[in-house]
């Protein structure tokens, strides 16, 4: 015997593998076995082929690659004996799938086996075909399978039926051939064949509408009868499951009836009796019974019905809901969601039970119940429901809170009839689960608050109270801080008290305390602190007496490591120190937002604009001005620094409102928001493309504010945008791009640049005269003048230039290509060079000049590096 033959028996190999203690050991054993098997395959060893494949299959189950065994399968299938074929087909199904090319080779063997005299072998072939056949194989072998549908042995018939299912799924065109055979299968008595026949019909209906029509007309009655027989049949030990005879057949029949009855009143009519019978008579204390009831309910829901059955169905679902078994409840909730579309009234009756399910311990049930509840809410029941949900919010799990909060918020928003109710509910939600509330939600809340002018006092007091108790909810702190800032005076003076309120005395000191807490808390994040700073500024205007204290607090942040906070505190401090006169104008009450604009913005349709209207500029842009109008530069736009990336549209808008966009990655697209989208040159022109004076280049604002002598203002209006490298900014930005070497103001309009003698030799001089267009410092216009210094005239004068990648060159045609001798005339040619790295890299150019003189061709090349520095 060959020393390499795999002598180990299957059992021994399995034992050996199981005895391995470590993965490495196992790999070693497997490797050895695979090697032996491979050797055996190479030898074409007949005796052990069977065993080898079995081993290979085991190895495959373990997870190791076994592709080398695929051909072995084919050889085994081609052998004559049943055991070999069996293992061959098994291996085929395990190691191969329909996408492999190798499968095609089996087609012939399959064909022969399908026609075999041994029905067990036919069974094997049908099995393999049904599990992994590809479309081509299906087409080839479909006639065989059709024939087998009428075979004498029921085992073969049922296998053929399922095989046909696969065939028609792969090749829907062949469906017509199977219709008649399938119909005859429905009359069978053998359960196995019946169930497979029913399944085949169901799939035929899905694939071919012709089949659907046929079955609907011819077979509905028969099916109803069969179902009746099954339901009424006596106890049969073979098919009994928990007291019901063959529940699977029940379910399949119901499913087929559903397909036939859907959309067809006639067919639905014929089923109503049997459906009612099944619905009422089936026992529901075991899973099998419940499965049947579930299918029955689904069928009732789908077919055309006048209502009697529907009520029955929903009652069943109601009973399911109160079942202790989680599975049943889950299934009921699922179905109820669909039932809501059909008959919402009936489902409403079970609202209480559904509410209980929301509080269940099983996560999937909770989720389903919440979704269902969401569908059930209408104007009448929203208030008590929300009350319950919010109560539950307090005790719910962390994972669930997010979901629950989102649903509550959207429900409240959708159904709120009065603003005060809305504000109340939102406050409660924020106090409980503020950390889960999304940004849009609290932005919307602030929007509503600012619109409800009569409720300002009430709101700010309520927020203050809430703030005192739940400071760990970030969004609550933010909203509270904003309101206290805006309406601090109402808070302290108890303005606009409503009857339902308890009186509360809040002094100015308390209000400032609250905001101070917000800043000082180490868990406050950037947004909160920034909002708090602005709120303090507002308060300093509303409570003049606390000005000093507020200044003290603000000053503490002057050295803050976060640029945003540092900048804000420095600027606000400046205002407090030097600009008391305009302070109150700065922090006037926010104007009421236009609702339509707000919802439009929220939908993300309009890009947001920074600038404000003319008149008293509030220190926060309220973005009402549409980008089309040329807005007056918001010189005091203190907070539109760190302009959000252009991609964020909706949701930005309220953010601007609160001046809260603080993306730590300072978007270099400086001002001009929306930078990319807007083609409004004017906007960008007047945009806040200011840069800190300490950096190179001055600010655009300087140009416009040159009338204002007050340097401080200019510094106020500077943004923290780092020196926007022109690379990133849209070209339009550079209209006022102040980048130049050194801190001087850029001089526009034809500054005199030194002209350059680019090239001079005894025979030729090239002079470059530079100019720049106002407003595009990147682009230099060069006028090149060529002078012939020799005594021979130059003909075919050609000037060529090459520039490195960061420059773009455009050559205009020369004035002529004959250069008269001795400087008696010159050729001029205009060049335009655009420097994409303007400010970083200087111009550099390689020139080549070619001309003919004295019947000689002359070529001169030179690199020009000495462009003026200030270009």
């Amino acid at each position: 015997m060959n020393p390499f033959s795999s002598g180990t028996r299957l059992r021994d190999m399995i034992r050996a593998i199981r005895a391995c203690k470590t993965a490495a050991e196992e790999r070693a054993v497997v490797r050895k076995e695979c090697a032996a098997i491979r050797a055996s395959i190479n030898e074409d060893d007949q005796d052990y082929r069977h065993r080898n494949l079995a081993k290979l299959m085991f190895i495959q189950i373990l997870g190791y690659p076994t592709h080398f065994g695929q051909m072995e399968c084919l050889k085994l299938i081609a052998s004559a004996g049943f055991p070999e074929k069996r293992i061959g087909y098994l291996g085929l199904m395990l190691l191969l799938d329909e996408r492999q090319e190798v499968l095609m080779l089996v087609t012939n063997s399959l064909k022969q086996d399908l026609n075999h005299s041994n029905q067990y072998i036919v069974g094997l072939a049908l099995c393999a075909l049904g599990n992994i056949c590809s479309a081509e194989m299906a087409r080839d072998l479909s006639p065989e399978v059709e024939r087998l549908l009428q075979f004498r042995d029921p085992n073969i018939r049922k296998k053929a039926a399922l095989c046909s299912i696969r065939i028609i799924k792969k090749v829907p065109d062949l469906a017509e051939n199977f219709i008649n055979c399938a119909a005859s299968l429905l009359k069978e008595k053998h359960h196995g064949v019946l169930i497979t026949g029913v399944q085949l019909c169901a799939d035929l209906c899905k694939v071919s509408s012709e089949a659907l029509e046929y079955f609907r007309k011819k077979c509905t009655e028969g099916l109803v009868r069969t179902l009746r027989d099954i339901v009424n049949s006596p106890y049969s030990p073979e098919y009994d499951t928990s007291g019901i005879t063959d529940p699977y057949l029940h379910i399949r029949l119901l499913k087929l009836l559903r397909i036939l009855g859907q959309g067809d009143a006639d067919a639905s009519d014929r089923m109503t009796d049997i459906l009612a019978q099944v619905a009422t008579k089936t026992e529901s204390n075991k899973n099998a019974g419940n499965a049947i009831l579930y299918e029955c309910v689904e069928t009732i829901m789908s077919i055309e019905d006048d209502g009697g059955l529907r009520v029955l169905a929903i009652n069943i679902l109601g009973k399911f809901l109160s079942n202790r078994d989680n599975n049943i409840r889950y299934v009921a909730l699922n179905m109820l969601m669909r039932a809501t579309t059909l008959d919402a009234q009936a489902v409403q009756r079970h609202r209480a039970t559904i509410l209980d399910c929301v509080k269940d311990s099983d996560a999937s049930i909770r989720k389903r119940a919440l979704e269902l509840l969401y569908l059930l809410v209408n104007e009448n029941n929203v208030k008590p429901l929300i009350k319950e949900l919010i109560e539950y919010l307090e005790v719910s799990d962390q994972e669930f809170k997010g979901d629950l909060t989102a649903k509550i918020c959207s429900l409240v928003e959708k159904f709120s009839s009065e603003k005060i109710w809305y504000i109340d509910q939102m406050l409660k939600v924020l106090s409980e689960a503020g950390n889960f509330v999304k940004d849009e939600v609290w932005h919307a809340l602030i929007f509503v608050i600012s619109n409800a002018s009569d409720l300002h006092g009430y709101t700010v007091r309520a927020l203050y109270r809430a703030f005192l108790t739940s400071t760990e909810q970030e969004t609550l702190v933010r909203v509270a801080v904003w309101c206290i800032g805006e309406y601090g005076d109402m808070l302290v003076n108890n303005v606009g008290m409503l009857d339902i309120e308890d009186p509360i005395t809040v002094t100015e000191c308390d209000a400032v305390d609250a905001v101070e807490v917000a800043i000082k808390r180490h868990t406050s994040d950037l947004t909160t602190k920034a909002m708090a700073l602005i709120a303090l500024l507002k308060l300093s205007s509303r409570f003049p007496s606390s000005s000093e204290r507020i200044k003290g607090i603000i000053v503490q942040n002057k050295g803050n490591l976060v640029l945003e906070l540092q900048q804000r505190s420095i600027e606000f401090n400046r205002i407090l120190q030097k600009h008391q006169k305009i302070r109150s104008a700065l922090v006037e009450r926010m104007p009421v937002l236009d609702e339509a604009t707000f919802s439009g913005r929220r939908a993300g349709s309009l890009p947001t604009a920074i600038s404000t209207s003319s008149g008293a500029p509030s220190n926060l842009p309220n973005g009402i001005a549409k980008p089309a109008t040329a807005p007056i530069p918001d010189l005091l736009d203190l907070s539109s620094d760190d302009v959000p990336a252009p991609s964020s549209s909706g949701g930005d808008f309220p953010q601007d409102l609160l001046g809260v966009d603080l993306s730590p990655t300072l978007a270099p697209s400086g001002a001009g928001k929306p930078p990319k989208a807007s083609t409004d040159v004017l906007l960008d022109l007047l945009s806040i493309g200011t840069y800190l004076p300490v950096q190179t280049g001055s600010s655009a604002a300087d140009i416009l504010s040159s009338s204002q002598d007050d340097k401080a203002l200019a510094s106020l209006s500077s943004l923290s945008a780092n020196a926007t490298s022109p690379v990133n900014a849209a070209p339009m930005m550079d209209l006022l791009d102040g980048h130049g070497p050194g801190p001087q103001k850029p001089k526009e309009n034809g500054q005199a640049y030194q002209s350059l003698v680019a090239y001079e030799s005894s025979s030729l001089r090239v002079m470059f005269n530079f100019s720049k267009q106002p407003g595009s410092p990147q682009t230099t216009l060069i006028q090149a003048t060529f002078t012939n210094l020799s005594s021979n005239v130059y003909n075919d004068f050609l000037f060529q230039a090459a520039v490195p990648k960061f420059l773009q060159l455009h050559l205009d045609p020369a004035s002529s290509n004959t250069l008269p001798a001795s400087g008696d005339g010159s050729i001029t040619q205009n060049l335009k060079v655009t420097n994409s790295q303007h400010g970083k890299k200087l111009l550099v150019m390689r020139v080549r000049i070619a001309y003919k003189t004295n019947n000689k061709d002359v070529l001169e090349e030179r690199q020009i590096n000495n462009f003026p520095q200030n270009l």
Partner: protein
Amino acid sequence: MIRFVSLQNRQGKTRLAKYYVPLEDSEKHKVEYEVHRLVVNRDPKFTNFVEFRTHKVIYRRYAGLFFSLCVDITDNELAYLECIHLFVEILDHFFSNVCELDLVFNFHKVYLILDEFILAGELQETSKKAIIERMGELEKLE
């Protein structure tokens, strides 16, 4: 339609995996791993149905083995739960008090039984007796 059947033990080792939809080997491993993860940590009080990608997995634990069936979203879960139970009963009958080791050493027979029970992703036979009889006939031919 059943997309795949899988038997896994608590440690995640697959004892049986039959796919009725084509999948690459690596995808199969990924799927088995994910299903195992989904199923092994669930509280027994929870439902036996889990959402898995765009389908559903219906599972049940018997001793140390998880029997999982991945089916289409629209299928009747309770029916498949019964299916799983029927399969386990058949195995039990065939191997006389089946245990995991039986399934390991006789994996090819388990596949045979499965092939008699489910074909092309659909139920083939609902009578335990019929399947056991058939298996007997097949064994005689070996």
